[in-house]
């Protein structure tokens, strides 16, 4: 490590993950030509959710001299470029500069980078034979990476359709069977789609074809958070007129959580009535929630009946059963967010 520079919090040139400011950090370090340190470092950046953007450059001798002089105060008045992407240098020799943009004051990874042996230790930790694929246990929630299995690339993300901690795996067809058998031998159990669906519903997550479709807007589906502020302010995207109108005037129908009283399961397409027995909507997903030990559902209702604790009726097999509008998710677990 030759030099470290902390630029502190800066405004971003464009928003990244809805954030408009970030902490810039530059590390200048030396590495042997052809060493794997850059790959390892960049893999660590990609895995670390605190890192918003990174750029690693090889510095030519002029850049090295420039950096050296700058450090010694030669350009005190020179304006420092605000984004690391602009810091260009020719790719030739072995001195490297890594610009890292963190969304928060860099913590764990920074400590690792500051000390080269630290980052190597980080990678050594992955090698013990625990688990089926080395290194996966170090993945953080909502991150992914390419790993090796039977000499083929296998892409694994720590995320999942259920909203809980889990892994989604992309693997070559020919290796799938042996891989799954290996997982089973290690104690994994196959559960199937039904179980997966109960978990995503407990987590209050939408499923395309049920809560989402070409006729549903993000506002109706209570997914306004998924549209960036800039898009909402500037418009001009497909469907923006309708969406912006709905934000202003309210959507007619809104996605809600539904808790039937008793044990009745209201499945998809169950009609929803208000207490005066007027139809106000339809269930889009409904099942028995094993973690909440009771029936749960999601559906769309007229906005005026979408308030929490509104009493509604569900028509199942010709009879109407009482239920209540409730908040989502049905079940919130503080699951593991991945390796530290």
């Amino acid at each position: 490590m030759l030099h470290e520079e902390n630029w502190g919090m800066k405004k971003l040139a464009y928003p990244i993950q809805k954030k408009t400011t970030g902490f810039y950090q530059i590390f200048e370090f030396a590495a042997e030509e052809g060493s794997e340190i850059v790959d390892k470092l960049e893999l660590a950046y990609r895995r670390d959710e605190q890192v918003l953007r990174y750029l690693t450059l090889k510095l030519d001798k002029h850049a090295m001299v420039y950096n050296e002089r700058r450090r010694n105060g030669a350009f005190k008045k020179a304006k420092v470029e605000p984004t690391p992407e602009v810091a260009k240098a020719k790719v030739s020799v072995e001195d490297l500069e890594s610009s890292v943009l963190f969304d928060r004051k860099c913590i764990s990874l920074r400590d690792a980078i500051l000390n080269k042996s630290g980052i190597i230790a980080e990678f050594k930790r992955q090698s013990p034979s625990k688990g089926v694929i080395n290194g996966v246990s170090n993945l953080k929630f909502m991150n992914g990476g390419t790993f090796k299995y039977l000499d083929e690339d296998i892409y694994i993300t720590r995320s999942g359709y259920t909203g809980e901690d889990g892994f989604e795996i992309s693997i070559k067809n020919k290796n799938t069977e042996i891989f799954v058998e290996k997982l089973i031998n290690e104690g994994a159990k196959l559960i199937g789609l039904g179980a997966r669906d109960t978990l995503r519903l407990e987590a209050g997550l939408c499923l395309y074809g049920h809560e989402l479709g070409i006729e549903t807007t993000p506002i109706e589906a209570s997914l306004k958070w998924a549209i960036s502020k800039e898009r909402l302010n500037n418009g001009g995207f497909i469907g923006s007129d309708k969406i912006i109108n709905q934000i202003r005037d309210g959507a007619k129908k809104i996605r809600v959580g539904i808790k039937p009283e008793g044990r009745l399961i209201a499945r998809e397409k169950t009609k929803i009535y208000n207490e005066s027995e007027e139809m106000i909507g339809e269930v889009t997903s409904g099942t028995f929630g094993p973690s909440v030990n009771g029936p749960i559902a999601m559906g769309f209702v007229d906005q005026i009946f979408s308030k929490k604790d509104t009493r509604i009726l569900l028509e199942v097999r010709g009879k109407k059963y009482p239920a209540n509008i409730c908040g989502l998710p049905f079940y919130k677990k503080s699951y593991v967010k991945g390796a530290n």
Partner: protein
Amino acid sequence: MSEVKYSKEHEWIKVEGDVGTIGITQHATEMLGDIVFVELPDVGSSVEKDGNAGVVESTKAASDVYTPISGEVMENNQAIVDDPGKINSDPENEAWFFKLKIKDSSELDSLMNKEEYDKFAKESGN
């Protein structure tokens, strides 16, 4: 002397005199998975052979229950309404669905015995 007979809709009926006790088979519960809801016919109602006589729901699906023979419902098993999981643990004994007064015992002739049912269940695979 009681005898147990089976229907193609995966119900069993245990006959004692003119009273039939009806439930769903072990094989049916295995196909359904965890049962989480059950609806039984009302006491005093009349049910017709092969007609609808309740509902079982697992996390996977809702399925109708059919009565293998006709009769008047004398009793239904509230214990399985309160704890549907009992149907998975002991379907052919404790978790009976309802008892009926048999209208026409000749209807029993169309049902299968244990051996025939086992063969049927194995071959039909559903």
